[in-house]
């Protein structure tokens, strides 16, 4: 009857949350209609869908602009963050000297720095990428550093006993051991890269030098086109979800065969 359907893994993972989403949308639609809430206050889901259909080319183009910045920032964060983490574990002195500045980067509100970066960096997209990178890099650095440090003591002793050099230890022990931590860092980082890109676009948008989804949201709000605003917002959210799902998938591919976090439960 119902039970085998719930037990089905595919149904549980995909259908159950989807049902919740549909129910919420239906309730939302019904409330808006029942109380006759005007679209400029709080638009119905169908109105948002209409707004999307009216100019899906323009919105998708804006999404592409935001996505470009997000992906560039993410790649830069992963590359630079990993490099910094590798540097940190090479010597305690390097870590002690640099860590305060990494933390400084993290605690400084990016909204406050973005205008400065946009003034300093001529190319808008480069400026936006820079802002998003500043936000997205921290989890990569901290997670990878912890991962490289968290080495199974038994294996570490074994490597020492076999007179393994620094590179062999790094390559064969520390890096594979750090992979689960690294992947957890990527999950957080990819979301932050998107948030960073959007936040930077808001800042840049006030100077009229942006083309992303945040700019669309601002334009729509000036024109009181609230359904379009919601449509752009929904696109950002969906993009974030997709990016997160991609990271989870990548984690499964890389770690699924050996790490507990990615293992399917055998029951």
């Amino acid at each position, binding site marked *: 009857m119902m039970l085998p359907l719930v037990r089905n893994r595919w149904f549980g993972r995909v259908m159950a949350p989807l049902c919740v989403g549909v129910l919420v949308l239906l309730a939302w639609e019904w409330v808006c209609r029942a109380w006759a809430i005007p679209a400029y206050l709080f638009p119905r889901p169908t109105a948002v869908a209409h707004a999307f259909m009216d100019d899906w080319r323009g919105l998708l183009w804006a999404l592409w602009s935001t996505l470009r910045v997000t992906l560039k920032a993410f790649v830069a964060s992963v590359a630079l963050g990993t490099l910094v983490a590798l540097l940190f574990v090479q010597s305690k002195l390097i870590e002690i000297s640099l860590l305060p500045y990494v933390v400084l980067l993290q605690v400084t509100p990016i909204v406050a720095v973005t205008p400065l970066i946009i003034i300093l960096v001529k190319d808008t997209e480069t400026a936006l990428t820079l802002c998003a990178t500043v936000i997205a890099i921290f989890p990569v650095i901290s997670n990878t550093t912890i991962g490289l440090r968290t080495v199974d003591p038994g294996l570490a002793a074994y490597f020492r006993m076999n007179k393994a050099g620094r590179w062999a230890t790094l390559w*064969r022990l520390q890096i*594979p051991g750090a992979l689960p931590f690294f992947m957890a860092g990527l999950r957080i980082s990819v979301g932050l890269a998107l948030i960073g890109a959007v936040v930077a676009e808001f800042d840049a948008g006030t100077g009229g030098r942006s083309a992303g989804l945040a700019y669309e949201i601002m334009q729509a709000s000036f024109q009181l086109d609230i359904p379009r605003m919601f449509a752009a917002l929904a696109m950002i959210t969906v993009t974030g979800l997709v990016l997160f799902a991609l990271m989870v998938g990548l984690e499964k591919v890389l770690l699924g065969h*050996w790490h507990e976090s990615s293992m399917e439960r055998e029951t």
Partner: protein
Amino acid sequence: MNAISETDVPAVDILSAEKVFANGARGLAPIQLSIRQGEFVSLIGPSGCGKSTLLKLIANLIEPTDGKIFWWRGGFDRVGSAGRRLAFVFQDPTLMPWAKIDANIRLPLDLAGLDRKAADRRVAQALALVGLTDAARRYPRQLSGGMRMRVSIARALVTEPNLLLMDEPFGALDEFTRNRLDEDLVRLSWERRLTNVFVTHSIYEAVFLSSRIVVMAANPGRVFGEFTVDAPFPRGQDFRNSDRFAGLCRDLSDLLMQASIASVAA
């Protein structure tokens, strides 16, 4: 040329080696012990008697506070050359979870820089020795505890050691699995003329495996007595079922009881 032949050279000579830990605790009182090549020596005794410490001294994982240890009549730098290789098996299998079984066994050869082809050949041999050829492409988490321990032993054997040091390697396994691994170990040691130093808590295991058992006592850690098991090798299930085996276990048990009484702090 030496007057004595190479096989008469003791694998390990411990000359009044003692160990005082950094916190001032006396881990080992000066110990005098010589291990001949081809011997299977078990270290047994109540907890705190320093049997693991003694094993680590022999592995050069720690250094004695005082006294000397010789390997084949030389310093530790002699270890590693042909005929003088040493391998250590820990209490845990300590395998790399991200690497397949064959890659785990190849690790010491990779670290030594052996070329891939020769290494793979030796890995295949080691896998066959411990009966895990079919598991080569699996991951450690797909194996049982006993199989993982076999992998750990294969990783030690792949380096073709002459001196095999094991620290309670089967302590975490059920008795049935332990007995089977003990039988395999006795056979392998016999076939390969291995010198073994084996730390254990089990009287039966010690008697089954050893040619000589060193009984230790605690407070401070020291050698309390020695016990010779003069049953022929290789040994199997019939030795375990014999009256001789039962008698030896009884005698060793008595000696251990005395050692534990002597271990009570003054």
